[in-house]
């Protein structure tokens, strides 16, 4: 005998993501889901971004990490509220983890929440967190072939940061091929070239982030 089910397997996560999204909207918070493979430079980008924007926006950070509190400690030094989620081996954050972290973070006092996902280019793309926009970071040493290997991530991101461009002279990374592949997946994506360690490209990125925040505020009014 056959029993019809027809249920979206991700529904539980999607329902919770909707709850998170409504909460972010209620307080007029712009929520960013920052994703990349391990070592692409998410935390350094975050540090630079906080240093640049913390006098203009009330920023809070949710740090996803497999085991350690190393990233949260780095963020804590900048004097912004940060909540650590240890997934204990789990390869992605889900909407439920973020929901608990939001309560701990007291988001009602914040304007910009950045969620640093677990370093992984595959799994996080399957779990909506209730964020406003997804940002994917890729670094020069990873190679220019990554967009087509991890299409879901690049298709859904609103912005892509190409980090560690100071290493371009030592690499066969082809920026034109990379840009063409990213745009073929997602023609509306914003691409930022950056060297987070030197600070190059941080200003343009922060300007864009600020504009996205203003846009969200206007939608709310």
């Amino acid at each position: 005998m056959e029993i019809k089910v027809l249920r979206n397997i991700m529904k539980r996560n999607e329902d919770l993501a909707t709850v998170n999204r409504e909460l972010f909207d209620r307080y007029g918070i712009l929520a960013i889901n920052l994703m990349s493979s391990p070592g692409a430079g998410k935390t350094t980008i975050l540090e630079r971004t906080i240093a640049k924007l913390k006098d203009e926006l009330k920023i809070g950070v949710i740090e996803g990490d497999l085991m350690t509190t190393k990233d949260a400690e780095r963020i804590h030094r900048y004097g912004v509220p940060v909540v650590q989620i240890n997934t204990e081996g789990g390869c992605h954050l889900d909407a439920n983890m973020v929901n608990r972290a939001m309560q701990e973070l007291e988001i009602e006092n914040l304007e910009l929440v950045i969620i640093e996902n677990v370093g992984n280019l595959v799994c996080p793309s399957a779990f909506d967190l209730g964020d406003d926009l997804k940002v994917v970071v890729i670094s020069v040493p990873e190679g220019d072939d990554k967009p087509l290997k991890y299409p879901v991530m690049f298709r859904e991101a609103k912005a892509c940061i190409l980090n560690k461009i100071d290493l371009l002279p030592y690499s066969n990374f082809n920026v034109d091929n990379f840009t063409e592949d990213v745009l073929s997946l997602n023609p509306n994506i914003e691409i930022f070239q950056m060297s987070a360690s030197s600070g190059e490209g941080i200003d343009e990125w922060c300007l864009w982030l600020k504009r996205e925040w203003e846009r969200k505020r206007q939608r709310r009014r």
Partner: protein
Amino acid sequence: MHEMAIVDSLFKIINAKVKEHQIKKVVKVKLKVGEMTAVEPMTLTACFEVYAQNTVVEGAELVIERIPLQGKCRECANVFRVYNYNFQCPQCESRSIETVAGRELYIENLEVEE
């Protein structure tokens, strides 16, 4: 390996059905999985077998139907199969493409012993 989390959600749905219909044995579980879901069928099947152990689902066959990626052109409304993740309309060359199929991740039905 997010397949474990997906299978966890899948079993919440299956277990609710098992209870609702007082199912004694599940012989087949049919899923529809889009091409652009980042789900690896072999991993999904391995996780499924682990979760099925010592339940009425143990030994059931997991059937995964892959759904091809399809786009719809926002300019000329052409619906086409997207190959190699190249989101460009073959008719008018527009790159403004809506994904209309290939993101599915759902359980279609259960086959059970009466």
